[in-house]
């Protein structure tokens, strides 16, 4: 109850905020300086330096200005086209599954079930484990000949595929592990979103004789929209720049079949093509911005209309 009243008061106060901000602040602007220095040194300067170095052939020992050649090379990189589509597939699959599973688990874990607190911690637990640890564990579990997963399927009479070694499955296998690891956070956001729905709506619906499905469709789904937006944005950004899990599990392999943009960039960096990999990072920056910025605008506008 307290949570909702705080939310309500914040909302009411919000329109007044800009007007208050325009009044002269009693504090000197110099207070911005420490933050500005930290931001400048750690973010602004490196960002502009990387835009510059993406236009050079850079070998750490020296650099040479070559214009946009790096971008041309990068877009001719055969692994890149594959990496770009893989990145999109990976982001959409993980983001979609996290929304669906996170919402279902969120509803389940806000309903009156036995051992709810315990189950909530169980669902959240994978989020706490190191990504590399998860990756290595699942690499062992998914081994086609000796792994536990295919052994278990074998006892049921199913011949399991080479999860990480078959080009058809490698990327999706990693995506599923990503979902396993990340769904706890999505569930947490959904639990918070669902709990903050005022109980009066649910009571009123029940009095009017709404079925469980109608309660979900007409009340929970629309009113948990801020949670959905947060989950979609967070998991999409996470999916677009995902690297650690893929690197721990397949290293982009077999061959180039599970390469994503981030692993392509990392490989250029490893090979010593620093200018080229910096150009790749600029491309990644542009791609993520181009996808997430409009999407965020779109989703948030819808929220206001509600």
């Amino acid at each position, binding site marked *: 109850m307290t949570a909702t009243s705080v939310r309500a008061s914040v909302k009411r106060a919000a329109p007044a905020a800009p007007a208050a901000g325009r009044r002269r602040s009693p504090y000197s602007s110099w207070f911005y300086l420490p933050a500005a220095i930290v931001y400048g040194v750690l973010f602004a300067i490196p960002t502009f330096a990387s835009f510059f170095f993406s236009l050079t*052939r850079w*070998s*750490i*020992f020296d650099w*040479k200005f070559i214009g946009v050649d790096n971008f041309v*090379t990068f877009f*001719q990189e*055969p*692994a890149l086209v594959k990496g770009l589509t893989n990145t999109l597939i990976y982001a959409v699959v993980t983001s979609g599954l996290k929304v669906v599973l996170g919402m279902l688990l969120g509803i389940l874990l806000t309903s009156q079930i036995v051992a709810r607190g315990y189950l909530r911690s169980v669902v959240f637990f994978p989020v706490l484990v190191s990504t590399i640890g998860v990756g290595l564990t699942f690499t062992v579990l998914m*081994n*086609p*000949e000796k792994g536990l997963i295919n052994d278990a399927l074998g006892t049921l009479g199913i011949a399991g595929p*080479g999860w*990480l*070694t*078959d*080009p058809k499955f490698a990327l999706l296998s990693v995506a599923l592990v990503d979902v396993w690891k990340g769904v706890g956070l999505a569930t947490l956001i959904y639990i918070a979103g669902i709990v903050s729905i005022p109980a009066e709506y649910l009571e009123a619906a029940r009095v009017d004789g709404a079925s469980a499905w109608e309660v979900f469709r007409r009340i929970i789904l629309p009113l948990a929209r801020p949670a959905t937006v947060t989950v979609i944005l967070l998991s999409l950004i996470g999916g677009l720049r995902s690297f650690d899990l893929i690197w721990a599990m397949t*290293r*982009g*392999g*077999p*061959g*180039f*079949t599970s390469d994503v943009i981030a692993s392509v960039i990392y*490989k*250029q*960096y*490893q*090979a*010593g*093509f620093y200018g*080229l990999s910096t150009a790749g990072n600029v491309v990644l920056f542009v791609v993520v911005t181009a996808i997430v910025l409009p999407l965020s605008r779109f989703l948030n506008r819808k929220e206001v209309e509600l």
Partner: protein
Amino acid sequence: MKSCKVLAAAGIAALALAGCSAGSLGSSDDSGGKVSLSFLVDNTDGSTKPAEALAKDFTAKNPDIEVKVETRPGGSEGDNIIKTRLSTGDMTDVFLYNSGSLFQAIAPQQNLVPVSDQAYAGDLDQNFKTTVTAGGQVYGVPFGGVTAGAVLYNKKAFAKAGVQVPKTWADFMAGNAKLKAAGVTPVIQTYQDTWTSQLFVLGDFHNVVAADPAFAQDYTANKAKFATTPAALAGFQHLQEVHDAGYLNKDFASTKLDDGLKMLAEGTGAQYPMLSAVAGGMVANYPDAATNIGLFALPGTDAAKNGLTVWEPAGVYIPKSTTGEKLDAAKKFLAFIASTDGCAAQAKAYPPSGPIPVKGCALPADVPQATKDIEPYISTPGASSLALEFVSPVKGPALEQITVEVGSGIRKAAAGAALYDEDVKKQAQQLGLAGW
């Protein structure tokens, strides 16, 4: 509030600690005129064991110089560490690193101390010397023996199936058919360790040179390509052929080098294209392999021209950041490595992968059979060639991914070779070579 104070205290403590370690870096050799050298090597047994042995024997001879061995990861990650530490002037006093194209990539003239004027320079094998030379100056001494990229084979499995050591690719494929009929996996491949997939291409280079002696020069000058030179393309085709014919172990995509060596030593697999450097470790785990595992060069088209592709050992170098009495000590240490005592110390600690390219250094009598099989090729004129990476600086970083794809049937040989030709372009441009 209390937690704030604790946090602040921790922060101050961290600052104090950082201050301490920064200060003590400069004064690590304050123990009574004793010089301490740090020596960076990669973290494989084949490097750390001989390095420790060298350090120990060297200190026994020079009691006032102490050598501390430090380790780093191998592969591209190690390359990065070397480059970063060199460029920041933070390198150890001496370090171990590849010779050949990787050596050229660390800008030796800018970063390393030349050793051409040292007395031992004349004792180094000429082939090795060319791989650690830049701008007419020699920069390193050899660490370990030459390594062959060849086929390791199980002699018992060969005898059981009635197969002879092949000299041509046709013989090799015929032998594979016999081995398969005898119930043995003919060819072992282990694509979880992606680098192991490159041997069919890189180890075939002697056959390329035999067919086209000018290939390396033309390749460096951007005139010859893998995809358009039949002899060079053959390596990719061979990789595809053994996969398409079903001669690989069925779990090739999910196994690692160690699994492959186990299969070979236990005789479930008959042939494993591999670097001879693995023989030492294999014998430690499977004593039987000392006599049962032999080695032959990758077969080509012409039996008369068949020969071995060899890799020169890595070198030990002194960075320019080593100065003063440390530099004198480092020079002494390099002289020791390039002496017969140094060879003996290394060979005692770990079986060398092949002959050590220093005058007067002989292979110990108890090396594995696979290592002994290298010598006839080396001592016969024209029966061995340096690997491509020692005669041309052009080496693409994605070869191992491409060979995994070709060897797993994901990509065809011709397409793989063409893709590799594109891949090397970046390296050539990065090095600023003419004609790219």
